[in-house]
């Protein structure tokens, strides 16, 4: 670490330093097409299956995990964002990708960020 940065941290009484997370308004920004493409890829379903497997496993010893987490599986995430058929038919939520409300998901991520949950 540069000495001037070290001195600044000492004056601030901090050991490290990070930018505050910006309150991105995803809905106001252009979408990243790669995120939209990934959300429409049915192979991501494997995460949902894994979540079910994890849920069926015995609870491990309590531990503090570093990251925050909203406590929802991807499937519940999508069912909550979904509009119309996508919300009514979870099994079809990525197969019927045209109904996928990607913008709503990103808006939700923005809300979580502004609430300090992610």
């Amino acid at each position, binding site marked *: 670490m540069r000495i001037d940065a070290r001195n600044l941290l000492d004056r601030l009484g901090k050991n490290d330093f990070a930018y505050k997370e910006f309150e991105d308004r995803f809905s106001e920004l252009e979408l990243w097409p790669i995120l939209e493409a990934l959300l429409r890829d049915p192979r991501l379903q494997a995460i949902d299956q*894994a979540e079910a497997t994890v849920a069926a496993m015995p609870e491990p010893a309590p531990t503090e995990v570093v990251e*925050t987490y909203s406590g929802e599986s991807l499937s519940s995430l999508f069912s909550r964002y979904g509009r119309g058929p996508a919300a009514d038919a979870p099994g079809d939520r990525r197969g019927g990708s045209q109904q996928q409300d990607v913008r709503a998901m990103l808006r939700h991520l923005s809300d979580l960020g502004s609430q300090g949950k992610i």
Partner: protein
Amino acid sequence: MPVIVTHGLKGGAGTTFTAAHIAMALSEAGADVTVLTVAKRDTMPLHFGLQPAMTLPSLFAPAEDAVLVAGIDLRSLTTAPEDNDFVPALRDLGFLETGQDKVMVIDIPSAEFAFARRVIPHASASVCVINAAPDTLALMPQVLAEASPENIAATSFVINALDETRRLSRHSSAFIRELVGARLLGRIRLDESVPEAIAMLQQLSKYAPSSAALADAKAIGTALVPALETPGRPWVARGSSPASSSSRAA
């Protein structure tokens, strides 16, 4: 004597750095730790402040040949990915059992994904190190399609070298968090002191004790301590309440 596996989706994710610091955190927690690298091009010694010319001794080399750094036994076995008897050999050496008396952290290069698949079912924890970057995200569907449901379920994730000042990094990180959910162990912030410590041939903890990446990596390693009590059944992160987060940006 549990085994913890670190691996990644693509090269350059920082798997070796993460493995080294998980080992250090477990050692500080009281575990007797062996680090095993199976990479033919190995950078593990650099994360322990060793010389670049250092070649680590074989897993099967006698104790007098051991390279010990801060009590951590550094070993190499480049033939392991092709050796079908590797897991039985681990068992014969006394690993794959419970407790902290002997722990092995195996760092597996991204190209050796088939080897990782073989070892993960026997590990107490599988840690996949990823970057919040679009090329990494693009690989996720393929990797998930190739992996067994059991191995996916057994894997926890770490976001490494996260630059929270960059919009795309923040968006990609948020995407990963939503995707992997409770199994996100945490994130390690991008920190120039990491390569600087390597260049200085020092351990990061010596070169930059206040390093943000050091604090993040240590927290992740500490979070893995419960995994030492789950031999033969992979421990996975299960998240926590928002109030208990300790790594939010200042």
